[in-house]
């Protein structure tokens, strides 16, 4: 799982480690680098981008640090920035390894949104990501929604988290027959190839949970009308909360069976 991020307000004085003006030398140094010392001024937009870059890298450095830093032992912001920058580069490398694993034997089940996000969108991140001057911008839009994504993350943190979770989802989906998944999507949306914009794992997880209730083989994601009626009877009398609790419990069971982090599936319901 991702480490908890340090929030900006945790960094600044008086409660935090640094005063805001202590960051200026780091931003000025980055600005010099950005303009190759050929421009004495930058636009507000650029200054904001560089300030955010410094904060992002410092957060990255403090977030990765295994020791709690006190204001007495706190290195200069420029040193923290450089260490954070190294951490960002290491995370990009790690994200790249996750991506390589993801695209190995990758199938989009005929769902264009899923396929385009992974095969067309994601390479653009690795080509264009600017770890030095704009590490907070992950550039691509990540159109394919995760089962339980973290919208607060940005930059390589977002991409790393996204790929890590996408890989878990891929491993989970890999336990089902490809035709069974496509069939289920088709049942939900006959023109799912172009029109299905939601997460694929969610209906599969839900249907697999229903199969568990009916004591059917997990790889078969089809339900006859009779089985659907049986299921309806099973849920009759339960309120929404109870149904959700049941599905959550079954999802955790499925996570255990398929090697997915339990917390991730628990968060999906």
């Amino acid at each position: 799982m991702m480490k908890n991020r340090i929030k900006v307000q945790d960094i600044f004085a008086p409660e935090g480690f640094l005063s805001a003006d202590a960051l200026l030398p780091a931003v000025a140094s980055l600005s010099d680098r950005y303009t190759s010392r050929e421009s004495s001024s930058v636009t507000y937009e650029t200054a904001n981008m560089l300030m955010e870059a410094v904060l992002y890298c410092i957060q990255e450095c403090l977030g990765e640090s295994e020791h709690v830093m006190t204001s007495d032992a706190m290195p200069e912001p420029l040193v923290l920035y450089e260490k954070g920058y190294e951490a960002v580069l290491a995370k990009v490398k790690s994200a790249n390894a996750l991506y390589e694993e993801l695209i190995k034997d990758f199938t989009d089940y005929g769902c264009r949104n899923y396929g385009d996000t992974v095969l067309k969108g994601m390479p653009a991140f690795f080509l264009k990501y600017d770890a030095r001057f704009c590490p907070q911008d992950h550039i691509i839009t990540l159109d394919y929604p995760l089962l339980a994504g973290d919208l607060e993350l940005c930059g390589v943190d977002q991409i790393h988290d996204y790929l890590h979770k996408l890989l878990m989802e891929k491993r989970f989906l890999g336990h089902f027959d490809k035709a069974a998944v496509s069939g289920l999507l088709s049942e939900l949306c006959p023109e799912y190839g172009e029109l299905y914009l939601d997460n694929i794992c969610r209906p599969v997880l839900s249907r697999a949970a229903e199969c568990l209730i009916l004591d059917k083989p997990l790889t078969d994601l089809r339900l006859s009308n009779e089985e659907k009626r049986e299921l309806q009877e099973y849920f009759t009398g339960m309120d929404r909360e109870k149904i959700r609790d049941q599905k959550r419990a079954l999802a955790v069971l499925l996570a255990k069976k398929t090697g997915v982090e339990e917390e991730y599936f628990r968060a999906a319901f």
Partner: protein
Amino acid sequence: MDIYALIWKEKEKKELGTLLACNEKTQRFGLCLTEEQARELVICRNNSLKKYQRVEFGSGILDKLIYVFCDSPYIDGGSYAETLEKLQDVFYAFKNETQDKVTDDEILNFMKEQFDSVCCGDIEYLGGTCLERFSRAVRDGYRGYEKSQGMGEYEQFSEEERWDADLYHEVLAELFW
């Protein structure tokens, strides 16, 4: 946190001293800034930065501007401070107009050359015509200034016919023969 307020506060401490130190080099051209004029210049610079939404982190452009323009035949002691105020404003406008593609030195070279030649010291013409035409070309993809450092660039963008040897002889011939 207002990053711009912090930057300006920090810079003001150092800046007056730097500007007054420039007097040592410019007084041989009959140009000198009083402390009050230097302070006024810094205020105008800050206003220009706000107007064009720009930030300066380091020593800024004013001392460079002074060194580049101090030997201009179109600046005298009486108009020195006022001319610098206008020139720095044109400089930042031009940075924005060229989308930060042109370096400080290239802009200053271009400005000084036109100021002393086609503009004859007219800052309105420099900003409204010369720089406007040049920045339009830069936005359209022109990059020739990178090689020339901004020198000898304007003639290709000028739309007016100017005096040269051939034109001079042609007019003489019309008048006297």
